[in-house]
Each structure stands twice: as structure tokens, then as C-alpha cells.
């Protein structure tokens, strides 16, 4: 009798352990498949960049080559990368400075029309930018900014600012206001409070925002 009562829980526990293990295996397999789907396309293009055109879609026995890269660098692509990066750095830098200042003002100061102004900026996110293409094209043609870096920076900065402000206001709300007040009592001007006190504290948030701006830039053209 005693043997039977003892045996039943053990068997049940054993079965449960098996079922848990099976569940874990299924979950790990699922995770593996999901990760494969997420990574495969990018990995494929990375590998494809080392293939010769003839063996591009061959299943086995493809030929390793660096000619794609030597051609690329030979054709002035290095120049294009440099252009892209400098354009990008200028845009991200400018948009970050504007967004940080604006977010600080929205988060800390009280002024007339603040609510509507914030609403206007946030609604900027929802605005279908594709319909701006035509008017901007005409405007830039008149200003002589077509095919000009300045024009691109201008467009890019204005498109990325609303979302940056939204993110930064969120981060700023987490920075204690007493810090600002202490700094003001110690005689800091508003500008000093922002760039010397608040900015260093919210730097992680700023980096996250800038990263977002950088990534969205890569698809902005």
C-alpha cells in the first residue's frame, strides 16, 4: 500500500518533467526558426556579396571572390559612402540639437499656446510626407536647392524631428525637476541648465533617439 502511494507521485512528476522538456524543445525549435527567418535574408545578401555572378544562385560549390568589393571601391563608391555619412552626420547632429532643445522647452516651460504647438509638432508625425514631394520640389527649384546637400538635410531634419521630440520628452519626464531647480538657484541660465545638467543625464536617451534618426535616415531617400 505504502509502495503504491509513493510510486504514483513519482510517476506523475516524471511525466511532467518529460512534458516540460518536450515543451522546452519545441520552444527552442520555434525560436530557432524565427531567428533564422529574421537573419537569413540579410545573411544571404552578405554572402552573395562574395559570390561571382555565375555562381550566385548555385546551391553548392559557389566561388569565393572579392572582385565585387574591388569593383565597388574602384567605381567611386568610397566617395558615395563618404557623402552619405557626412550628410547623415550633419542631419542627425542638427536634428538632435533641435529636438533636445524643443523637448526641453515642451517638458519644462509653461507658455501660452504650448498645448497647440505640441499638438502641431506631434501631428507632424502623422502627416503623409509623400504629398509634400511636389510642393517641396517646386520650392527647392525656386530656391536653387535641387540636387543640393542643404536641401536634403533640411528635408531630412524636418521629417525626423517630431518623433525625436516625442521620444525625448518621454526621457525628460524621467529626469527629476528638482535638479533643474537646484541649478537655476545656483545661477545657471536656461541654456546652461539644459546643456550642462540635463543633457548629460539624458544622454542615453539622446543616443537612442539619434540611433533611431540614423537608422531611419538610411531608408529616407
Amino acid at each position, binding site marked *: 500500500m505504502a509502495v503504491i502511494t509513493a510510486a504514483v507521485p513519482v510517476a506523475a512528476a516524471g511525466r511532467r518533467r518529460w512534458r516540460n522538456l518536450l515543451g522546452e524543445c519545441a520552444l527552442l525549435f520555434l525560436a530557432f526558426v524565427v531567428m533564422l527567418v529574421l537573419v537569413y535574408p540579410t545573411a*544571404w545578401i552578405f554572402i552573395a556579396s562574395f559570390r561571382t555572378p555565375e555562381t550566385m544562385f548555385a546551391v553548392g560549390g559557389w566561388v569565393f571572390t572579392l572582385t565585387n568589393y574591388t569593383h565597388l571601391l574602384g567605381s567611386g563608391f568610397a566617395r558615395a559612402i563618404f557623402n552619405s555619412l557626412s550628410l547623415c552626420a550633419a542631419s542627425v547632429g542638427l536634428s538632435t540639437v533641435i529636438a533636445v532643445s524643443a523637448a526641453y522647452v515642451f517638458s519644462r516651460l509653461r507658455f501660452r499656446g504650448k498645448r497647440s504647438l505640441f499638438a502641431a509638432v506631434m501631428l507632424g508625425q502623422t502627416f503623409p*510626407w509623400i504629398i509634400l514631394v511636389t510642393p517641396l520640389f517646386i520650392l527647392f527649384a525656386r530656391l536653387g536647392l535641387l540636387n543640393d546637400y542643404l536641401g536634403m538635410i533640411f528635408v531630412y531634419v524636418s521629417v525626423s524631428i517630431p518623433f525625436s521630440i516625442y521620444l525625448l520628452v518621454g526621457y525628460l519626464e524621467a529626469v527629476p525637476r528638482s535638479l533643474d531647480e537646484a541649478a537655476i538657484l545656483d545661477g545657471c541660465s536656461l541654456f546652461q541648465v539644459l546643456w550642462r545638467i540635463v543633457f548629460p543625464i539624458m544622454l542615453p536617451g539622446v543616443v537612442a533617439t539619434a540611433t533611431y534618426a540614423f537608422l531611419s535616415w538610411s531608408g529616407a531617400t
Partner: protein
Amino acid sequence: MTSPDFGRVLWNTVIWLTAVGVTVRLIAGLGLAFLLTSRTIRKYRLETIGRVLLLVPWATPPIVAILIWRWMLDTRVGIINGLLTGLGIVDQPIPFLASAAWIWPALITIITWNTLPLVTLTFVASLQSLPSELVEAAEIDGATRLQVMRYIYIPHLKPAIIVMGLMSTFWTFNNFVYVWLTTGAGPGLYTNVMATEVYIKAFIDGRLGYSSAVGVVMAAIMAAFGLIYLRVIAQRELRESF
């Protein structure tokens, strides 16, 4: 404006691109977030690698992502058709990007793949801010998995889901790149959406007035969503100052 063509464009934009696209993305993002924070993944210490790999599609620019997927979905050399015919699931390769039945699922797959990381990371961050004691306490009290999901996870994730849903709606609704580069609004004008319609009418047909009218309709629809969005974030982010 009242032409049957425009009805198709509106249907494509609102139902396929935005409603289906955003829903698929949110559900996939939620599923993936639960997977990445699950006990098994944590037990085998796969969280970090999972999160790093998750960033790969995000760091892939849309133009590159679209090119790769177009290859993958190709009828002759595409890996997906290769797999399907190889495993004997289908006899004939499916022309994903040329048949009316498959074009939208294919497009939504591409968009979801490319935009999933941001949604997933937001949900993961939200899940991590949930104290694990809550779930443990509920389990000790005898709550089933479904109840834990219904009464603990979903209420906790609700703000993140709402904000991500609204933002995805704007991004997707206004997006021009995915549809234009994947299908060029084709075959024919089958996958034409409002953003591509604005572009086609203005720069290919030269009808700036019509194009502007479509743009105004787009802006009006988005303004309605924008007002909802504004209410949500004004409550959340600027609670103190308003």
C-alpha cells in the same frame, strides 16, 4: 476622385496595407516578445543573442530588404519556392509577386519582416518592467496560463500596444517605399496605394491637381488618427505639464 480606381486604392491602403499589415505586425511582435522573454530562453541564456539577432532586420535598409525578398520570392531562383517544391508542398512554383492572390500576403511579409524589431523591442521593454512577483503570485493562487495572460500581461502591455499600433498605422499608411519598390504598384495597378497614387499622378501622369486631392484625403484620414494619438500621448507623456 469618385472613380472605381480610387475605390481600389482606398481599399488597398486602408484594409490591406494598414489594417492587415499593422495587425499582423502587432501580433507577431507580441508573440516574439513573449518568446524572447520566456523562461526557457532565459534558462539557456539565449536572451542576448536573441536580441542582437532581432536587430538584424531593423538595421537592414528597406531598399535592401525589398531586393532580398524579391529574390527570395522569385519563381525560378527563389529560396522559398525552392523549399516549397523541394518538400513537395506545391508542384508548381508560386509566382508570389505576380499573382493577385499572393501579392498582398507577400508585401505584408516583407513590411512585417523589416519593421518587426522596433515593435518587438518595445513590447520586450514593457514586459521587463512587469514585476515577476505579480505573475508568480497569480500562479500560486492557481491562475491558469490563459488567466495570467488575460488579467496580467495584456493590461500591462495595453499602453505599449496602443501607442505602437497608432505609430505603426501612421508609418504604414504614409509609406511609399515598400509598395513602390516591391511591386511598383503593379501588377497593373493592382497594389496601388494612396502614397503611390500621389506619386504616379503627380510625376508620371502629370496631374498635379488630382494628386493633391488624393494627398488631402490622406492627410484628412491621418489627422483623425492623429487626434486619437494626441489624446493618448498627452495623457501619458505630459501628464504633469498639461
